[in-house]
């Protein structure tokens, strides 16, 4: 078994352990009851989403500086995972919000901003799929990856001013309990899962590009 595969199995095992702990072993939260269990997935997945988009940003800058297609492939791999994580975050968030707040959708800054990230990075992926020359495609994508990441904090801030309802992040004091440890496990597990999927997606993208470039010549 190579190292990447091992990483994958480790991530899956940790996610499984975290699921069992979160679903069965831990008692219900004193304040929020059973629904709290959703946060052990929701928060780490949201973290993975932010991590993924940050990676897109970094890889975009690296591409613009060095102009190596490798960085572009790493960026698109992260962007794809970021969009999946964003959609998942939204679904988990609404599932948690319905019993907690009594509504499916709150126009809260974090939810709204996350919802806006989906079209932004979908646009990123669509623009990539439109260009045939790999260099052009990488250049356009890198520009969008960079601009998008600059916008996000301000989009967040503007929605925050517009309306705020979301509960603040847990304070450090509550983190070092059994709940905190399960949450920490979730962060580690989902980060490893991201790393695994990211590298595997990158390998696929590299092979695909090689295939695209070495195919029978046109024109």
């Amino acid at each position, binding site marked *: 078994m190579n190292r990447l595969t091992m990483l994958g199995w480790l991530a899956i095992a940790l996610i499984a352990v975290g699921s069992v702990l979160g*679903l069965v072993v831990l008692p219900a939260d004193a304040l929020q009851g059973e629904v709290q*269990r959703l946060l052990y997935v929701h928060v780490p997945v949201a973290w993975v989403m932010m991590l993924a988009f940050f990676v897109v940003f970094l890889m975009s800058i690296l591409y613009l500086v060095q102009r190596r297609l490798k960085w572009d492939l790493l960026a698109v791999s992260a962007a794809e995972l970021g969009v999946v994580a964003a959609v998942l975050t939204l*679904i988990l968030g609404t*599932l948690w919000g319905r*019993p907690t707040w009594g509504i499916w959708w709150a126009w809260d800054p974090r939810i709204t901003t996350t919802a806006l990230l989906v079209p932004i990075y979908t646009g990123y992926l669509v623009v990539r799929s439109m260009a045939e020359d790999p260099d052009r495609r990488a250049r356009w994508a890198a520009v969008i990856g960079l601009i998008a990441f600059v916008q996000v904090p301000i989009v967040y801030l503007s929605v925050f001013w517009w309306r705020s309802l979301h509960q603040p992040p847990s304070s450090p004091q509550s983190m070092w309990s059994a709940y905190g440890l399960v949450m920490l496990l979730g962060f580690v597990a989902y980060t490893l*899962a991201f790393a695994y999927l990211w590298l595997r997606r990158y390998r*696929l993208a590299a*092979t695909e590009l090689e*295939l695209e470039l*070495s195919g029978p010549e046109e024109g």
Partner: protein
Amino acid sequence: MNDHWLFIGAGYGITWVALCWYLLRLRRRERAVAAASGRGGEGARAGGPG
């Protein structure tokens, strides 16, 4: 309280489904690429730079 387990189950379930879906999709694409590179590999190499 009981109906909260519906939401919790849905949340955990969807996460696992999403994970499996993405993995399966990756695997399908990897296989497609492997099959394509097996077929077109030779002819392609002739198109390289002179």
